């Protein structure tokens, strides 16, 4: 049964490589976008930390900024 699924009447190499290529691309795209997201977020947190108290208060009054700071572990 398992060898039949793997070989697929001689078409296994084609079928498995097509599926593997798809899943590899999914993983690569996910990792690249995730890295970009983490990089921008770290930059935001560093910049926010460097603001003086008055500017930080102004920045924190914006709902998106609050949301970015509160969602430190989103995907």
């Amino acid at each position, binding site marked *: 049964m398992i060898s039949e*699924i793997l070989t*697929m*009447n001689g*078409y*296994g190499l*084609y*079928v498995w*490589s*097509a*599926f593997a*290529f*798809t899943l590899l*691309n*999914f993983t690569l*795209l*996910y990792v690249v*976008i*995730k890295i*970009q*997201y983490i990089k*921008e*977020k770290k*930059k*935001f947190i560093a*910049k*926010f930390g460097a*603001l003086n108290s008055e*500017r930080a208060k*102004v*920045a924190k009054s*914006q*709902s*998106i*900024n609050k*949301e*970015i700071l509160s*969602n430190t572990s*989103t*995907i």
Partner: protein
Amino acid sequence: MFKYFEPNKIFSITSKAPKYVLFLFVIILTVGLIEALVLSPEDYKQSHSVRIMYVHVPAAWICLGIFSMITFLSVIGYIFKIRNFFLISKSLAPSGFVFSVIALVTGSIWGKPTWGTWWAWDARITSMLILSLFYVIYLIAWRIYDNDDKAFKITSIITVAGIINVPIIKYSVDWWNTLHQPASINILSESSIHVSMLYPLLIMTAAFTLFSLLIFLMKYNTELIKIKNKGLDRL
């Protein structure tokens, strides 16, 4: 109506949604893979090589759908000056491009056992390659003119030029003699594909749609944070 699409209003949703979309995607993809690789029957002519259809066809559908959406949003965004529509378009493009590459490569892999060749300059394959190139040009344009008004104009022109190719891809099998067969699935008339193959195809399409939604949400959030970073510089 457009005020509901403002980033300030939707960020609280887009920042939390990815984890739920990822969870749903993993479940549906697992079901889809079991259906596509194990449970679905082999074709009487193509044998097991028909299983490549379950990745090739959804990828092709979604990259066409995403490009059409990008064009629509870019044109509407340009006419009504809605910057957020450009941000949405920009965030949709990476997954659209990757799906176009998947459609081309898996099509090439499918071509070898079916037609005896990895590549042919057939109308559909060539027009699909052109769509991939339009995605590349679109993504490069954003890299060159990052988030300024010139980027909105240039990317809109690219999408309008590229959208001409979309009906060519769709109807190329009817207009010319190509290696591809005519469409097996029709929304308006009866489909010629058997349900035992249609269901895995629809499940894989749902999984791929969820993946593009996941990438879109992550990219959109990244772009919003990038804009907010620039805002902090101006404070």
